């Protein structure tokens, strides 16, 4: 495999940055000035020496060809990962051949890459051996699982009681009850080891202050929470697939046990959401041959970027395994056979009517589903009073954008890209509308991220 002539875009490189400060610092280092002896190898290693404030330049090396996204090493003291030097080096590499010419990696870079690759191979071998032997004590594991199920059952039963009390007194009272009531209930669900229930309960608390129409939304969410409780309490009677969906919605840990599917996976979108404790990164992939859309999740502690980073618009030759449960998009990234590389693949698109129907169908498998990933073809962003729509170029139908999409700067990138002409847009389509994440111009052109 050769990497020469296949460069990333600056956006793709900057997407790797752990925060805004690094993005800025990295940008500044992305010019030839501070760099010397930079180069790149056919095997996907990029290296260089960066002049800093100290007397010795920093040694920076990036392994582009690594499986879970690029791997970095830098002799600087930064705790950021990747550090600004790694970002700067990649920007330099992305910008031109001249400053990062092909060549033979110096010893210090070569040793690190070789060491890494050997460790990866060993880990893989060990992993293969480990899974063959199975878990240490299946009987103890079974007892642990049983105890946890009992606690969740107790939690779900208590939650049902709380919901019944709420409806007996009326939702109108919930506006006065305030946040504390729900926080306490959520804490009880955490104790019951049902994080999925806890998260839903916590969201209930925010609805009464969410503007006009809140009683409808509160009733909907209470009803769906009730449905999940009931689903858990009666899981024995459910079809296997639906039971698996209920278990994952309640928050039981599951592992991706689907058969590995090897494909050229196009990275459709990558975006982070953060709360006080956790940064969650969602990466949407599209399989060029299998046509499936898969969701990779990666987590980072609060304020830290999750480790997996796959720049939008690249494609990776890799295996992906689905998590159990009907209607679930979530998957795990398995072995990667080549580094992510730019591609001309675009996902096939549908109309707005087909997108809405697709969400409806997906609810059959998973009634708790908020949205489904969809690519809309030939749609035009159109202002509709205070809100925006995506209108089919060839029909009189449209999907409104979600409230969150309307506040993002990406909306204006989308509108600018379109200029009133049709574009292809990938995003999440659900009952609150459509959230655009990535767009492609009608004619040729690279993917533009909107999130």
């Amino acid at each position, binding site marked *: 495999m050769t990497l020469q002539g296949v460069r990333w875009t*600056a956006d793709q490189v900057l997407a790797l940055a752990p925060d805004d*400060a690094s*993005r*800025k610092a990295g*940008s*500044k*280092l992305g*010019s*030839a000035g*501070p760099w010397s002896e930079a180069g790149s190898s056919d095997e996907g290693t990029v290296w260089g020496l960066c*002049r800093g*404030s100290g007397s010795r330049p920093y040694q920076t090396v990036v392994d582009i060809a690594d499986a879970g996204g690029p791997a970095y090493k830098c002799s600087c003291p930064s705790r950021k990962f990747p550090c600004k030097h790694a970002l700067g080096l990649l*920007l330099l590499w992305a*910008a*031109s051949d001249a400053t990062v010419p092909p060549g033979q990696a110096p010893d210090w870079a070569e040793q690190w890459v070789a060491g890494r690759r050997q460790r990866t191979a060993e880990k893989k071998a060990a992993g293969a051996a480990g899974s063959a032997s199975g878990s240490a004590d299946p009987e103890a594991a079974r007892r642990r699982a049983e105890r946890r199920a009992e606690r969740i059952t107790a939690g779900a039963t208590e939650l*049902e009681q709380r*919901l*019944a*009390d709420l*409806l*007996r007194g*009326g*939702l*109108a009272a919930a506006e006065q009850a305030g946040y504390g009531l729900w926080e306490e209930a959520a804490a009880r669900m955490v104790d019951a080891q049902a994080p999925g229930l806890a998260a839903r309960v916590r969201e209930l608390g925010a609805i009464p202050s969410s503007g006009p129409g809140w*009683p409808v939304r509160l*009733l*909907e969410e*209470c*009803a*769906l929470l*009730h*449905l999940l409780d009931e689903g858990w309490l009666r899981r024995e009677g459910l079809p296997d697939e639906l039971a698996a969906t209920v278990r994952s919605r309640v928050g039981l840990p599951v592992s991706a046990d689907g058969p590995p599917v090897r494909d050229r996976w196009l990275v459709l979108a990558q975006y982070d959401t953060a709360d006080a404790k956790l940064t969650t990164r969602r990466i949407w992939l599209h399989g060029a041959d299998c046509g499936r859309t898969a969701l990779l999740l990666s987590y980072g502690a609060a304020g830290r970027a999750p480790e997996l980073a796959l720049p939008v618009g690249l494609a990776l030759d890799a295996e992906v395994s689905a998590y159990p449960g009907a209607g679930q998009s979530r998957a795990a990234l398995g072995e990667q056979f080549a580094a992510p590389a730019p591609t001309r693949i675009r996902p096939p698109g549908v109309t707005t*009517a087909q997108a*809405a129907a697709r*969400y*409806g*169908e997906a*609810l059959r498998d998973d*009634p708790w589903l908020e949205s489904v990933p969809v690519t809309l073809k030939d749609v*035009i962003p*159109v*202002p509709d009073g205070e809100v925006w*729509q995506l*209108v089919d170029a060839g*029909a*009189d*139908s*449209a999907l*409104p954008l979600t409230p969150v999409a309307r506040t993002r700067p990406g909306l*204006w*990138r989308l509108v*600018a890209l*379109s*200029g*009133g002409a049709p574009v292809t847009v990938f995003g999440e389509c*659900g*009952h*609150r*509308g459509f959230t655009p994440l990535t767009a492609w*111009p009608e004619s040729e052109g690279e993917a533009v991220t909107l999130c």
Partner: protein
Amino acid sequence: MIRTSAPVETPAAGAWEELVTTALLGTDRRTPPGGAPGRDAPSALLDAAAVQTVRRRAGLRPAPAAKRPEPAPADRRPPLPAAAARRLAVLLADRPGAAAGGRRSTMPDLMELLPQWLAAANARGYAAPPEALPALLDAARGRTDLRPAALAFAGPRALWLAKLNPDWRFALRATPGGGAAPHGPEDADRIRARWEEGLFAERVTLLTAIRARRPADARELLATTWATERAEDRLMFLDSLRTGLGPDDEPFLEQALADRSRNVRATAAELLSALPASALAARMAARAGACVAVDHTHATPTIVVEAPHECDAGMERDGVVPKAPTGRGERSWWLGQLLEAAPLRTWPARLGGRTPQEIVALPVADDWQGELHAAWCRAAVRQRDAQWARALLGPPSAPEAGGPGAVSLAERAKLLGTLNAAERADWVAGFIATHGLSEAFQLLGVCAVPWAAPLGRAVVDALNIARDAGSYPWSFSGVMGLAERCLDPAEASRLDGLLAVPDEAEDASPGAGGYWAEAFQRLVTTLRLRAAMAEELDAP
């Protein structure tokens, strides 16, 4: 939420309303409809609501489309080369506010390079990448100095966008005619309509745009409504005649000399005085000539000045402001105005056939020199008279050029503006070679970018001398910042010798050598970056 155009089942809508009402009131007050036997009321309500919720969501249909906006007009300019587009994204990503550093690091300040990048891209006629337009508009919104270049580069699609987003309304105002700048006679009706119905700002931009291309048309347009305009509007409109001012404008300006508003009269007089062949200029020349003469009774010929004793009605009509500002003598105030408005070319004949150089060199009696030379400076700038400017500037190596003299640095900077770029650069280079950098900042600001080779060399040499003298580089941070933006990137290699940290001399400021190396490092890095930017824009 997506609107449901057709509920899955007709009674469902009613049933849902009923459920919501019951839920709001509580099942203790209202019995929910239906419900399976054996279920308590709240559970039955939740059962029914769950069914309805999933049904409502599954039955969602797209909404009817709103009215589509007119598509953006096509941008016929070629797209940026790929590397240049990436560079633009990086420059725009480096927005102020993110991680403001204290001490200037060795890294270039990218935002400072954006104006240059835009100018270069505009010079090559490239179109902006559509997805970059929001960031470009945001940058232009925050920095008015960036607006003309950013909006020119952003092109027609940016104006189309600006109509959709109130944050970018400035783009519609800043661009002549809100983007659709009128061309040709077929637009006469549109021009007339906008002139008569437009907002004030729109009318100013319209007038300015027309004046830039066809000065006479603009004047005629202004004349059609002149009598009915408000005084402050008349002032602004009159100001637009500065562009492309010519002898044809004289009748209109003469008429404005009789305007009701004093400010309008003053502006008209100022504009007329910039036309050396105008009747007003001739009248002023006669008045000024009466005040200045060469006295041969002294040992050396000396200029004697006799300031006017009164400001008569004629002077006032020609724009002389009678009331002096606080702290100024009335007579010298009137004199200054007469001298400033009189055509410079009449002086050699009046003062014994001397050249401007010889006139400036004459001694002036009774401390009038400062007043006299300052007024001539203003006249040279207003009349764009390079010969007089040269005379008043004097040789750059003259001791008074750098220190207190008849002509201040600010005046020198303005005088330099009347010279051509090469002469300007040579003069400033000569100035720096004699007087060093500490006074040069203002003068450097009027030099063309990139700096001509002799000027660049003078600046680098002076920086080098400052370093050897043992001062700290931040005493020169203003010049350093200018050098980063203005030095020709081809000079970068000449700086390589300055990057090393020198051995610390005993009398030097502690650590200065290291800081200087850092400052030069930053300078070189920025120059290399600028060279790379230019290369990227020239790539096929």
